[in-house]
């Protein structure tokens, strides 16, 4: 797979750059604009660093009104807009185009209201994921979706990609935890959906907005569900002699009527790197581990861990360790959550995000291994096992000519396998630019056309986050 093409910049916009920036600054005075080359460089890529493109300018608005004014100006002047949170997208979701204004929402990071009675919090969308949980923690609450990048990533980005995390097996992903949104439409109009009550009248526009990758509107505020912390949450480490045994154990746990808060899987290469990095106490003599977390009262936690351990005994269990303290639990999770960073210190990597039906896990792992071997890459597997969301990390060397292109090609083959096994291209990272051209493997023309028609309802000229999600040629089908 060659690098996905980026649209040719609009010459009419490029030639008017100075005038556009002058007008924008005049119309939206309370916004910080970054126009110099040095400053813009920060925004030319996101966490998918293989792709870079310098935007026309970057706007850092401080209010919904400012976002609205920027959007209205861009609408009147046919200028494309790329919404950005913290730029942690792994799919190139925040990659700008040369002729676009990046609207970076990160300055809008205030907690507006915590409402314990109704168990909701109202926030500006540029707040980081972790900051929400931290703000409500003194009252014993937390915000459930917890992507690995939660320290940095914004809620706005989570909403755009419908982010998940390790604990979504029990608590759901972003869309299941949002009650209200304030949005700026492409022409600058502001609308509100839902609120501090459940569900909404009419069509489920909130369900549509979450996961729409910044292509339908820009979210400036949200009302999120907050949840009371459990009395006790406790992880257990289980080690197995093979990935197959670990996979079968996951299916057996769920089959037994137990849905833990999280079931995370790591294979041997991932275990070794993470253990080296975080000293989490992972066993090094096993082929795969599961981190299984359960919660509830002391008695309930003990009972569930015992039942799960019994099930694991039937699946060639090699190693078992139940966390004995808050510190030990934190260390176990630190190893898992720092996995991407730890691997990044050793090698360049390309992180996949395919999903498969759990029953096809052994086959999927086998085929991932075969593909990586055929392409000559090492692979480390980390994934949310409870919901079949695989994150194979393809390790490559960016300094070697062609290696990135081959790693991408290998990744594309892996995602095709996921689709072939009944799964999908992306479970929580989004399509972005990275998987745009793979969409026809999962969807027929008719499927894509219906999605694109919906896009056109909100963004008739396709000005929002251009060249993402749909193959460039697909728009001709409309």
């Amino acid at each position, binding site marked *: 797979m060659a690098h996905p093409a980026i649209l040719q910049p609009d010459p009419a916009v490029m030639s008017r750059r100075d005038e556009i920036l002058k007008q924008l600054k005049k119309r939206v005075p309370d916004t910080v604009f970054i126009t110099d080359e040095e400053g813009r460089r920060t925004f030319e890529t996101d966490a998918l660093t293989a792709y870079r493109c310098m935007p026309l300018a970057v706007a850092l608005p401080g209010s919904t009104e400012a976002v609205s004014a920027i959007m209205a100006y861009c609408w009147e002047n046919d200028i494309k807009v790329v919404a950005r949170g913290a730029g942690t997208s792994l799919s190139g979701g925040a990659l700008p185009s040369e002729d676009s204004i990046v609207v970076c929402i990160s300055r809008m990071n205030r907690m507006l209201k915590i409402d314990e009675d*109704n168990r909701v919090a109202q926030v500006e969308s540029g707040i980081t994921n972790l900051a929400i949980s931290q703000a409500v923690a003194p009252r014993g*609450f937390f915000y459930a979706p917890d992507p690995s990048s939660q320290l940095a990533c914004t809620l706005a980005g989570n909403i755009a990609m*419908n982010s998940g995390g390790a604990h*979504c097996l029990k608590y*759901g992903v972003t*869309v299941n935890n949002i009650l209200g949104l304030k949005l700026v439409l492409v022409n600058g109009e502001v*609308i509100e*959906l839902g*609120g*501090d*009550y*459940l*569900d909404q*009248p*009419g*069509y*489920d526009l909130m*369900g*549509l907005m979450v*996961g*729409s990758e910044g292509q*339908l509107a820009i979210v400036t505020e949200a009302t999120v569900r907050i949840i*009371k912390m459990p009395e006790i949450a406790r992880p257990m480490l289980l080690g197995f002699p093979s990935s197959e045994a670990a996979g079968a154990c996951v*299916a057996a746990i769920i*089959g037994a*009527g*137990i*849905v833990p808060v999280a079931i995370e899987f790591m294979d041997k290469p991932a275990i070794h790197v993470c253990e080296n990095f975080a000293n989490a106490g992972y066993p090094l003599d096993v082929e795969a581990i599961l981190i299984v977390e359960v919660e*509830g*009262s002391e*008695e*309930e936690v003990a009972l*569930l861990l015992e039942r799960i351990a019994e099930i694991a005994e039937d699946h060639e269990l090699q190693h078992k360790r139940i966390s004995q303290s808050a510190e030990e639990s934190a260390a176990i999770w630190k190893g898992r959550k720092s996995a991407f960073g730890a691997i990044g210190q050793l090698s360049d990597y390309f992180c996949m995000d395919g*999903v498969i*039906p759990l*029953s096809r896990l052994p086959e999927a792992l086998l085929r991932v291994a075969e593909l990586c071997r055929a392409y000559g890459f090492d692979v480390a597997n980390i994934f*949310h096992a*409870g*919901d*079949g969301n695989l994150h194979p990390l393809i390790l490559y060397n960016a300094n070697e000519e062609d290696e990135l292109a081959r790693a991408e090609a290998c990744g594309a083959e892996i995602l095709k396998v996921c689709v072939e096994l*009944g799964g*999908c*291209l*992306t*479970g929580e*990272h989004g*399509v972005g630019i990275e*998987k745009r051209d793979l*969409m026809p493997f*999962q*969807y*027929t023309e*008719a499927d894509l*056309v*219906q*999605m694109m028609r*919906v896009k*056109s*309802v*909100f963004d008739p000229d396709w000005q929002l986050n251009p060249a993402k999600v749909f193959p460039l040629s697909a728009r001709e089908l409309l």
Partner: protein
Amino acid sequence: MQPRFHAPETVEDLADLLLGYAQEGLPVEVRGLGSKLGYGRPVQTAAVVSTEKFDEITLYEPSELVLSAGSGTPLAKIEKLLDENGQQLAFEPFDLPPVLGGKPGEGSIGGVFATGLSGSRRVLSGAARDHILGVKAVNGRGEAFKAGGRVMKNVTGYDLSKLLTGSCGTLSVLTEITMKVLPKPEQSSTLLFFDVPEAAAIELLCKAMGSPFEVSGAAHLQPGLAAGLSDKPLRERAESVTALRVEGFEGAVRYRAAKLKQKFAAFSDLTELSGDRSRRFWSDIRQVRPLQSAGRPLWRISTAPSRAADLVAALRHTIDLKALYDWSGGQIWLETGATSDANAVELRRILADFGGYATLVRAEPGIRASADVFQPLEMRLMEITRALKASFDPAGILNPGRMYSGV
């Protein structure tokens, strides 16, 4: 004149049929098994298209928590199969048919998702739309398409499955639905507090929901409503009833119920239902059994729990009503006196000060034709709604007017 009735057997036949009607610009009524025809604005069309022939469970993998079924599959058939495997639909689909004069448990899975109404467990486990993983459907252009898939997590493209959930057949005809299923709790236990005044009762429910004890049902019945329950001893209680449910493994349920009793020890008039008695109580709530008087309009209001009691008090000044609160007070079922518009204008005027929305769930067809059954949308949202309708169904042939005039 009787409308022409179609029950296509294949997706291709359905697509051809809809294409034909679209070309002629002739509207069709979309239905599953017809158990919820009294919901929404009445639709008058020359033809009816039923999904009743799409009635097979096409995939069930208990250990993957996933089930796919044709949209015309009876809900009862799905719930029976799940039950045999110790699983359930965790959003506890609201049992609409008995509210509209039908029998409990009637209807198709397509109807469950097309109306998108969730039961008491919604406060803990999410709504119908939170459990839909994927759909296959035919739009008003006669094009078969799919959205989503069969895996638990999927952000590949826009989530059209959620958009179709609750759209009452106005965007597309669902042909197959894939949903998340979950283990059925081993034990169910319900604490009932009697004679707690309304505002204090809602506060109790909110406190319980804000506890770590995983309350999976939080309801309040005004005085007199217990008479409409199926449990005989409870029927004799004239006072208000405030209910909290906990579910899960036996030991955990015992523990949580005890903790809740301790937490609310100030409310001393209480009783505990467990096992089947607890399940029967919530099955009554699932069909608002105490509010099934034919002839009286029934409203469903969604608002913030903390404002619910004040809202009902404000409504009571001018509207003759009985209220059953669910979802910790966030969902209010309101049976009102019959007036020419089922109190629609007055109710929404007062609701506007509190926030939320109201749906007229039961009323005479004449009233449903003239009053706003679904909450009127703000102008810009209505424009978006119309444009979305046109993107799926440009000729406007699918259930036209069922939700909103011109949609």
